[in-house]
């Protein structure tokens, strides 16, 4: 088996996405869907519902009364928040493991993915996209290819880094040259296998090069910008560092400037700390365990 065949076989072996997530993504992608459709989709997922209720009843929200149902949760926290929590819970299982090839310790890829999801939602709102929740989901899944490519990157790491530093190319371009695929391409294949909507597949495939998509797409741009700001602010950086290309055209396309980026960055960081706090409140292990000493 060649290297490339081996990688493709690995894509074929990736476990299916939980049914709830697939349905939810399709509901979100359908412009005619309603809040009821969303409740209907989620309420049959026992595991998520019970975890959701635990999260809603965590000390962080400080609700004056206990939340007993998904409908209650939607009423008190709002549909968007509940949806985000459902997706965050599910993606944790997919993304929480260590990705040593990229120098990402346990929990770090998930943290980065949640950060990109939050920032992508903020950019989607800023440029008036209708579907903010879809931007959240696309952001959450944009690096899924790293889970597949991890071991291959680990094995070829020295060669990849050498190409990055001597040829001044991006980490993805070096992956492509050395392994035959970039993590975006592999991620898009995974999303295709999962039968996710084309809009999300595009967000993953063009997450580092949005200008390759013609005509350009607002949703793809939000994920690209979200990833840029999260990399710049160092949220979940791995050994690939910031070795990706900045594309000026994306900012111009949406009339954005440096300050817009910084505002969204600051907002994302505040929300990320909130999400981490909620998850830390409900599980013994904090996402980033800190030992506090003085």
């Amino acid at each position, binding site marked *: 088996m060649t290297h490339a065949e081996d990688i493709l076989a690995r894509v074929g072996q990736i476990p299916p996405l939980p049914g709830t997530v697939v349905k939810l993504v399709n509901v979100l992608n359908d412009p005619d869907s309603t809040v009821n459709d969303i409740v209907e989709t989620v309420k049959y997922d026992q595991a998520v519902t019970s975890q959701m209720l635990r999260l809603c009843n965590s000390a962080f929200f400080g609700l004056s009364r206990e939340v007993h149902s998904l409908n209650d949760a939607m009423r008190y926290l709002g549909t968007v928040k509940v949806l985000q929590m459902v997706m965050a819970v599910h993606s944790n299982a997919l993304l929480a493991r260590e990705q040593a090839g990229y120098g990402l310790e346990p929990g770090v890829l998930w943290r980065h993915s949640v950060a990109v999801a939050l920032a992508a939602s903020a950019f989607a709102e800023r440029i008036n996209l209708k579907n903010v929740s879809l931007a959240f989901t696309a952001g959450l899944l944009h690096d899924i290819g790293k889970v597949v490519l991890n071991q291959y990157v680990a094995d070829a790491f020295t060669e990849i880094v050498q190409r990055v530093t001597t040829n001044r190319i991006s980490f993805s371009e070096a992956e492509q040259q050395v392994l035959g695929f970039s993590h975006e391409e592999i991620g898009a294949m995974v999303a295709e296998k999962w039968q996710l909507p084309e809009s999300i597949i595009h967000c993953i495939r063009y997450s580092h090069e949005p200008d390759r998509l013609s005509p350009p797409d607002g949703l793809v741009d939000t994920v690209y910008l979200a990833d840029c700001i999260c990399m710049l602010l*160092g949220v979940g950086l791995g050994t690939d560092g910031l*070795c990706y290309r900045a594309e000026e055209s994306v900012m111009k396309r949406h009339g954005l400037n440096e300050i817009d980026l910084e*505002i969204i960055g600051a907002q994302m960081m505040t929300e990320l700390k909130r999400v981490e706090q909620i998850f830390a409140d409900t599980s013994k292990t904090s996402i*980033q365990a800190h*030992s506090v*000493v003085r």
Partner: protein
Amino acid sequence: MDLVVDIADVQVTDNPRVDLVTYSLGSCIGVAIWDPEAHVGGMLHYMLPESSLSPEKAKANAAMFADTGIPRLFRSAYELGAVKQRIIVKVAGGSSLLDDNGTFNIGKRNYIILRKIFWKNGILIDSEHVGGALSRTLRLSVATGRVTIKNRNREIEL
């Protein structure tokens, strides 16, 4: 014993058993300060240059911005007995993407404001490791004042 300085966080200590450490500095800047006589060490990891972006967020967390975080770092160190004239300052971070047009120049802006604030206050940088497209880990030993930078398993002393 490691005391982790998170993103948008500041920590100061006189506990000689502590290493102050901050991970994954991208365009953010890490400032490590140490007073060799008082054996006080401090570290700031700020995200953005100016608090005017969001005075409300700066009030909730001074360490988010350079212009509120740097004064907080130094004042907290003075409270533990550090003296300005003795403090050794080392700086790391300010990275950017592969960016020929300066599209996202947060790293550069973060560095420029640091220089400006230090210049106004007569503070000299002892050594620094800034720029590029690197992710850096910054570590300060409070016992010895030794500062290191780590990037892709390569560690150098600053």
